[in-house]
């Protein structure tokens, strides 16, 4: 039995008083890869933001336990320091701060150790090569003028540099071409080891072919309605979400 990394119990989350997550239960062990699939509006991104601690996402019930500690009330930076990472679906543009400066600052914050310029430059260069990113990206302003695909790669670059214990990938595969998906998946597989876990949130299953998930969950109308292996994802690939929706009398989130 693997050691537990993340444990979510009966989690209910509101956005502006509206209940989006209606009681989520999920356990992620060390070294596991979990996939959460589901139609749009089901609460997938809400789960990602709630796990990361966005102030607009209000936990009204339940608990999130990470590495044995309840983190419900921790701010996002404290969660990052504990080892949670979120790859954003829509990364923010920060003019005036280069990718390199930003990542050096972030790595210093997350590890609590000052990152010396020269060794960090070397580390960044290695990670960028693995992701097939041109060196010039290091000196560009963070996400400014990046294409959708470049932004996603940049998120994965940040993940590889920060080396979190739990990486949550929110729709990282959307907007990526086949080559980029392969490169991103390689980056994810490189990070994964018997201590580090991955939670992939996706609408499609493009990324699934490259990852080797331990569990696939279906999130529908704020609840996880089904959990299994890769076969669930295959079924959805063939028949879409309609079968599951009718099975659980999905009301379209109304």
């Amino acid at each position: 039995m693997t050691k537990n990394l993340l444990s979510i119990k009966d989690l209910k989350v509101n956005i502006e008083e509206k209940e989006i997550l209606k009681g989520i239960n999920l356990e992620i062990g060390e070294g596991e890869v979990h996939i959460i699939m589901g139609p749009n509006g089901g609460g997938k991104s809400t789960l990602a933001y709630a796990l990361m601690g966005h102030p607009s996402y209000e936990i009204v019930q339940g608990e999130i336990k990470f590495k044995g500690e309840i983190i419900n009330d921790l701010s996002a930076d404290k969660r990052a320091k504990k080892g949670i990472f979120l790859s954003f679906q829509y990364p923010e543009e920060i003019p005036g701060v280069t990718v390199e400066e930003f990542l050096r600052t972030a790595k210093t914050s997350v590890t609590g150790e000052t990152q010396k310029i020269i060794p960090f430059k070397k580390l960044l260069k290695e990670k960028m090569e693995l992701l097939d990113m041109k060196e010039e990206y290091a000196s560009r302003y963070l996400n400014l003028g990046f294409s959708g695909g470049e932004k996603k790669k940049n998120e994965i670059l940040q993940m590889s540099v920060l080396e979190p214990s739990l990486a949550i990938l929110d729709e990282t595969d959307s907007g990526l071409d086949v080559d980029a998906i392969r490169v991103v998946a390689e980056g994810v597989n490189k990070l994964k080891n018997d201590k580090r876990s991955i939670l992939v949130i996706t609408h499609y299953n493009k990324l699934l072919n490259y990852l080797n998930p331990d569990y696939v969950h279906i999130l529908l109308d704020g609840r996880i309605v089904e959990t299994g292996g890769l076969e669930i994802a295959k079924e959805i690939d063939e028949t879409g979400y309609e079968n599951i929706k009718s099975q659980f009398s999905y009301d379209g989130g109304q």
Partner: protein
Amino acid sequence: MLWNRIKLDDFDFPEVVDYKKEYVEFNNLPKEVIIEKINKDNNPTVDNMDVIEYRGLGRKFTDFVEKSHNCGIYLNIPKYVKFDEPIKVNFRMDNEDSSVIDNNIIIVGEESEVTIVFDYETQNEFRGFHNGMTRILAKENSIVNIIKIQRMNDVSQNFDTNMAFVKSNGKINWTSVELGSNISGSSYTTYLNEEASESELNSIYLGDGARKLDLEYSMIHKGIRSMSNIRTHGVLMDESKKVFRGNLDFKTGAKRSKGIEEEYVILLDPNVKSDSLPALMCDEDDVQGEHAASAGQIDKNKLFYLMTRGLSEREAKKLIVEAQFKPIIDNIPIENLRNIINSEISRRLTNA
């Protein structure tokens, strides 16, 4: 009028004593250039700098400079002169030199180019007083870069009036860095008098503590096809107050001219006050004036994004503010000054 908003109606000037320290620094001065210090006894006359329409802090302030100045530079650059290095002017207020009333006159000849950096500072907690005036004549095809840095302490007072008169194809680039003082009023007026004259003004300001800031930037277009661009980035925190006035004034004759004015301000605390009064005046139809502004808190989602990478809320805010200022600071041609400015901004933001 002008000072109503920051309540400075009944203002008295202090007694002025001579300014004794050396304040001009330059290397490899081209030999035809005349540079002199202005004082009570050396008072050069000013030609070709006729104010069409007065703007700025008010006659009270400029009259005082004309009458009571205790320092300043007179710089006369003939045609076709290029400088290897910027001229640096540093005024430091302390027990010896309690006030700076500088009267600066700069004449730049045809096809010449010069960069002058003015740096105003105070020693420790000494209560300094600065009221100055800088007048510039930029002749045909000349380029004049003026950089003004105001980093006086929080008990000092700063007033600064700047005017430039630009001839055809001449260009003046203003850079203003406003970081200190209890009360600070600065005004930049550019008279784009002739054909294709041009001006750019880039400024950054930081309001913290109880600072009151009054900024006035005017571009007065008179020449055909004249161009102007005002871009200002500011941050207000604690209980600071700011009034910004940006004027694009197209006079008769300024056909096919274009002016752009942008103001961005970040409000870090709920008790700050930010007033913006952009104005566009047109005597001609065939002109283009653009205005853009935004004032508000740092975007919540941007802040969250940075925090998910381990930065505390304060560190994340600091990063965004410093990033806004960076392009302007990077343009200052003296490394030592860039470092001083960066650490001054960092210090003021950390104390927040």
